[in-house]
């Protein structure tokens, strides 16, 4: 335990800004999860591993000499097809079934993906250098890497683009219709199978963007996917499905919480704190609902 952060106000500003910028990134992943959870009613444990795979695509570009920031355009395109094939291969068999089956099946996918990434990219912690430099604020007492600001801006732009796409385009309307009532949508001529595949593809593409941004701002490792899954799950249960401003806000809240936990408890407890927060949030909501004699559904 270290309460230095409360004695030095500038550290608090630093942690909050870091957390907010990071949280926007988490919110992007969570939006993808909310999308496929809402439309297909499956929980994707492999979400975090899709993120890491997206990150490795950007990292591969960096190794090939291309600036990794281009990854935010290339990686979603590749990841869309990865998601699409994943849907055709496995996910289409778990839609409409017990949620636990989807959890276990995607857990299996997560294990396979982790191991394959371990083979292909090695077990080292890697980072793609963007060389964007840093911004100094408040008399050099707060430092922000420009790559983090870049990642937040890109995330917001993509999120806005996606919201417009969902509102205006034909596929977006079909996705929303399927989310409301899959059977009715089918009767009215929506090819739900295609919609599901596209939804999972879009989710994977969002993960790809987030992954490419993580490759620049944070670090990549084949086995760190699960914390991203848990973070996005947490954001979704706090914010609810399909409530974008709430997703963004709770994402930022989570980011700030993490940075503070990092300062107070120490870096070794950071991931532990995230998982414990998940447990606390679920238990809190359970007691709140139990007062009305209801439970989380």
């Amino acid at each position, binding site marked *: 335990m270290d309460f230095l952060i409360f004695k030095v106000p500038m550290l608090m500003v630093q942690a909050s800004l870091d957390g907010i910028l990071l949280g926007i990134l988490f919110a992007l992943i969570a939006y993808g999860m909310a999308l496929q959870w809402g439309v297909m009613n499956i*929980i994707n444990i492999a979400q975090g591993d899709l993120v890491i795979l997206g990150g490795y695509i950007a990292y591969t570009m960096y190794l090939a000499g291309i600036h990794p920031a281009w990854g935010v355009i290339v990686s979603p395109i590749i990841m869309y097809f990865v998601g699409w094939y994943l849907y055709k291969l*496995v996910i289409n*068999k*778990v839609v409409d*079934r*017990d*949620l*636990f*089956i989807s*959890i*276990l*099946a995607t*857990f*299996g*996918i*997560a*294990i*396979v*993906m*982790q*191991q*394959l990434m371990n*083979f292909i990219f090695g077990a080292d912690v890697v980072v793609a250098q963007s060389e964007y430099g840093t911004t100094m604020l408040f008399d050099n007492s707060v430092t922000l890497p420009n790559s983090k600001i870049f990642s937040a801006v890109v995330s917001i732009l993509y999120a806005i683009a996606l919201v417009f796409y969902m509102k205006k385009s034909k596929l977006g309307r079909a996705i929303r219709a399927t989310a409301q009532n899959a059977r009715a949508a089918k009767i009215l001529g929506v090819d739900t199978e295609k919609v599901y595949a596209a939804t999972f593809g879009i989710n994977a593409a969002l993960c790809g963007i987030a992954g490419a941004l993580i490759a620049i701002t944070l670090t990549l490792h084949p086995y760190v996917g*699960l914390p991203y899954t*848990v973070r996005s*799950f947490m954001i979704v*249960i706090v914010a609810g499905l399909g409530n974008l401003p709430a997703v963004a806000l709770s994402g930022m809240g989570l980011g700030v919480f993490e940075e503070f936990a990092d300062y107070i408890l*120490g870096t*070794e*407890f950071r*991931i*532990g704190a995230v*998982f*414990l927060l*998940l*447990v606390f949030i*679920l*238990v809190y909501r*359970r*007691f709140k609902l*139990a007062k009305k004699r209801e*439970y*989380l*559904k």
Partner: protein
Amino acid sequence: MSKIKQKDLILYSALIIFGLFAPFIFSAFKVQLTYLCILIVLAMTWNLQGGEMGYNTFGNILFYGLGMYLCASVQVGMFFPLAEWTESGGEKTFVHTTAQYFQGMGVGLLVAAIVPTIVAGAIGYAILGLRGHYFAICTLGLGIAGGEIAGGIEIIGAGQGFTTPPFPAEIVDNEARGEFFYFLSFVLLIAAFVFVKYIYGSRFKLILNAIRDNEDKAEAMGIQTMKYKITGWMCSAFFCGLAGGIMGGLIGYIDSTDVAFDGREMGVFMVLMAILGGKGTLWGPVIGATLFHIFKEGLWTLILGWQYVALGVLIVVIVIYFPEGLMGWLREKYPERFGEVIDEKDRKASVELK
């Protein structure tokens, strides 16, 4: 009726005799047999949760890891300062005598059984109020948080791990160590089986099934579901803690995320084994664990490096194509063997409807 009982008796005595003599006949596979016993215990107790009660948990690994750390800590802490032991190379300074080792192991296992049970009871009220996938994700979080936190605590070795006391040097015979752990786990297996079998014949099992099938209705019928859910979880925790304690001694080294709170291996294995054999049956987890273990030990070395890929593919295939497991498949095929009576007319009618 007596005929069936006689048949069961022969089966059980054959299995026990096999269990008693197996380490001597297959002396090269003693460690594997010990693993098998532990795996069966884990699968059976998971089945009480996931199969009978319908609360699919990934969190039983929490009790397993807790038991492992507690057993080893007690075994060391009873005689020597724990903090110095876990410092690098500290385990070489202190040596357990034979009496100390077994005393420590006994007390350690007792603690490893009791504390996880109490923990399960304490957190049960909060956690078991969640349902379905929220429960699954919450327990997944619990298990991983346990590992991450244990990996940050200095006194139990933090990230560099914890060496459990080596088997007393006075017993030079190398076979004795394997036999000791084998029989320890075999006794645990028998205890767990007898316990689960007893539960299968009791009202408690029916209540658990009622909770699985429809919790709201069970509550409306006047069953205090929460009480039974917590009891069920405590039963699982008791055996998981013991299994963890034994496993810690057998492996000889505890790492926070790779051995103790090993959600990626053990935590998934127990779910997978129970599903492979058939959830909600007495023999399903036993058969599932045995098959899985044979498959794992037989193929693991052939596909070195690709084990996890094979494991992941196996999970996906089992979950998608055999969600009912082996016993469920047999039940579908030979319903009369399971004591189910099928009305031929009714069956035909339902086929025609399709």
